[in-house]
């Protein structure tokens, strides 16, 4: 079956790829673009491990038809650090032990980034809601919430 040409912004760079009919964005990011940061968890929209930002809003890349991002901007965990400097959320996750096995972490970070981009001073409840679509099976929710709150207050607060 013929492939379809697709162009979109990936972490600030234009990419042009060919994709299979019906391919999801996660498969294209990992298998074609070579960005392994979004993870495949459930393929059903239940776990959030594949969360990326499309035009600044959190989306599940495994449930996004790749062709639907034609001309749009896709941001993944691979693009959030600034050169050699980690993003404040990444630093806060390290300082607050917010990762154990690490599989949910890329999705958690992108869900948290979507929150902080819209709301730089979230409440604890805002954080809980923001990551409610992301499952952590090491049961690390408390340190993750604390890390997001710490990143929001510039790393000063110790929630």
């Amino acid at each position: 079956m013929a492939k379809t040409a697709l162009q979109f912004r990936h972490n600030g760079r234009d990419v042009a790829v060919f994709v299979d009919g019906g391919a999801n964005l996660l498969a294209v990011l990992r298998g074609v673009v070579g960005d392994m940061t979004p993870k495949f968890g459930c393929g059903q929209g239940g776990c959030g491990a594949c969360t990326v930002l499309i035009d600044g809003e959190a989306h599940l890349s495994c449930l996004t038809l790749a062709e639907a991002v034609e001309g749009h901007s896709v941001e993944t965990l691979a693009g959030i650090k600034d050169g050699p400097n980690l993003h404040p959320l990444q630093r806060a996750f390290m300082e607050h032990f917010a990762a154990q096995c690490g599989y949910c972490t890329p999705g958690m970070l992108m869900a948290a980034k979507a929150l902080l981009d819209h709301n730089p001073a979230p409440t604890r409840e805002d954080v809980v809601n923001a990551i409610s679509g992301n499952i952590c099976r090491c049961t690390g929710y408390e340190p993750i919430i604390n890390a997001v709150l710490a990143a929001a207050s510039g790393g000063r607060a110790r929630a």
Partner: protein
Amino acid sequence: MPVTVRTFATSGEAAAALSSERDARYLGGGTLVMRALNEGDVSLSTIVRATDGALTRLDISGSRITIGAGITFARVLAERELSFLHPVAASIGGPAVRNMGTVGGNLFAPAPFGDFTVALLALDATVALQGGYGAREVGLEEFLATRARQAAGLVLSVSLQRPASPEAFRYRKIARIKPKGGAVMTIAAHVPASGGRVLSARIALGAMAPTAIRAKAAERALEGRALDATSIAAAAAAVTEGSSPVDDSLASAWYRREVAGVHLRRLLIGEP
């Protein structure tokens, strides 16, 4: 297995494509159709999309509201005029699902999903459908009853009257995990009162049958009566009449029947 993706500029062309191909499904936000593809659903060979701006139109100027089928739950939450639907939209998924899932797609979500449809059913919404030969409007109840054997058509929008008053519309989703979890059941009620008596009560249940259903026996128990302990107890006792819940990972059918009356009572007395 690769599928064919056909993207159209107008909803009319998309509807025509849907009615001409039996294995075609319309892709809205992706939370149902992409999920089916990821699960290897081979009944699906063609995906139909439409970029028609009319599908994301929201008309809130009059007393009758029209919500385009492509409106996402995030968009509903951003609209102050739709504040009566905010608890409903907020009860669906996490933020990413709300950025993707649409009002039109929710009409097709199988139990235990489809919470928004439960609210729409209580609010007596109608569905605008585009078939191969033209557009028509059907009541949501009729739409849901025939959903499984629906001749191919494309949902354009849903329309509904605003609730008679803010307190006339009640909504409650019972989930084991908060803030995000599938429904043990979902209950929506529109109980407008006139002179202290309930008139035209509508009670809708989700996850109590394959589609959202009305609890008509409970509605009759309230009709023309004051919303008090006696009428509420009668409604609670009758709420499962006509329901057919299933056992799933969230609850057993027995449990769902057992607690439905408890939750309806709490909803009607306004207990948090």
